[in-house]
């Protein structure tokens, strides 16, 4: 089962979408697959309610926030 991933600019398999993030689903997985299956139900089944919540709750960091966080962490290290 394939989808065109706009982040990677290529056709990818469903299995990538649900495991690419250190074994956890991509933050976009629900949006991307929502029209094709009951993705929320499926993810809740494999992640459990708590795991599902952990993965999808909260607002995603913006690109700039992410970059600054990385720079800060590297700065602290050395």
């Amino acid at each position, binding site marked *: 089962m394939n989808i*065109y991933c706009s982040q990677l*600019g290529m056709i990818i398999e469903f299995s990538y979408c649900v495991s690419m993030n250190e*074994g956890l689903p991509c933050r*976009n997985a629900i949006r991307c697959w929502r029209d094709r299956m*009951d993705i929320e139900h499926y993810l809740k089944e*494999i992640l459990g309610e708590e795991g599902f919540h952990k993965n999808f709750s909260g607002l995603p960091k913006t690109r700039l926030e*992410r970059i600054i966080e990385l720079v800060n962490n590297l700065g602290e290290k050395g």
Partner: protein
Amino acid sequence: MNRKTILSEQDMPRAWYNIQADLPNPLPPPLNPATGEPITPDMLSPILPMNLIEQEVSTERWIDIPDQVIERLLMWRPTPLYRAYALEKFLGTPAHIYFKNEGVSPPGSHKPNTAIAQAYYNKVFGTKRLATETGAGQWGSALAFACNQFGLELKVYMVRVSFNQKPYRRIMMETWGGKCVPSPSPDTNAGRKYFEQNAEHPGSLGIAISEAIEDAVTSKDTKYSLGSVLNHVMLHQTIIGLEAQKQLAMVGEYPDMVIGCAGGGSNFAGISFPFIRDKIHGKEIKIIASEPTSCPTLTKGPYVYDFGDTAQTTPLLPMYSIGHDFVPAPIHAGGLRYHGMAPLVSRLLVDGLIEARAYSQLETFAAGLMFARTEGFIPAPETNHAIACVIEEARKAKEEGKEKVILMNWSGHGVIDLSSYDAYLSGKLEDYALQDEEIAKLVKDLEKYPKPR
């Protein structure tokens, strides 16, 4: 009948347009996630040269394009403005459809407009080497071309799935002398922890960003470079819209609407910002950003799960925090959470100066095919989102019997993305809803993957 309008080299714009000078509401400063304090320019100095940081925060309306940048841009600019007569005829629309062909650059997209500028500013700042990440490979190849022009070294961390399955972008980077490695790589701490677990780890854009930033911060004379999202990237792209304004004037037209696809927002910003300036000054013009339904950052806002109350006792509610016609609550407005979208583009949406539409992947490929079979050029899959929107508007113009003038940014060609067309043409890409038994089969297939923690 002029099929294309060509601007002379002398008439190529000599300054970029900075929309920050004309914003009705100034852009709120981004916040440092660690402290909640505004991000100050010095926080970016480990990864960006000071001259680009100055552009990032500048509110000067016009910023001169340096001669050495002009010289390189002239390799393919000014880009032609096409009238899409064949597409108009096919649709039977009274609309006049114009497209700005940014696919004529050496790497085949709009990306080198900023890559050239960024390589130049790094060069004069004293940077010797750049590091970046790439997902699809367009940005990596554009930067490889630009670094070669200015004699800078380049290292690109390319998400491994893409590196393995799309060799042509990597080969382009190497042809221009850039170094491209699959991410996660063993070359950084951020990559090594995944690489050592699994040397064939498929990677993700997140890991590749971490690797590139670490490289930039920890290597000598090295900076980081980003192909979208940041204000200075939007600035460098405005040459597209500035040229288009001159070209449309040459044929005596002014657009009723301007359409661009929006991923990180840079090509959309490029074509639209000069026209948004006109809109701010009273022109009636519709500006539309077109994006995939699968990732509707602008049309739906971040789709997040959140507790219904702060005590976190209610069940989880799916919620769109920012909708098409919904002005976000102040808690979200401070730092709009469009994680992949340029803050400037997000701001314009909130201010009602632009609108957003979303199209499904099948609609966009159908649009791309129609374009290729009328106008000839094969569009990049991203560009197909803009084309889908143009077709929708051209059909509406037909129903209304109105001679609308539509301007679209044709952000790049798809000759290196033919495998996606292949998937579409052979019916492998579908939007259809899955049946229960197919889902059951999928669940079974997935048992071989490690269970998420």
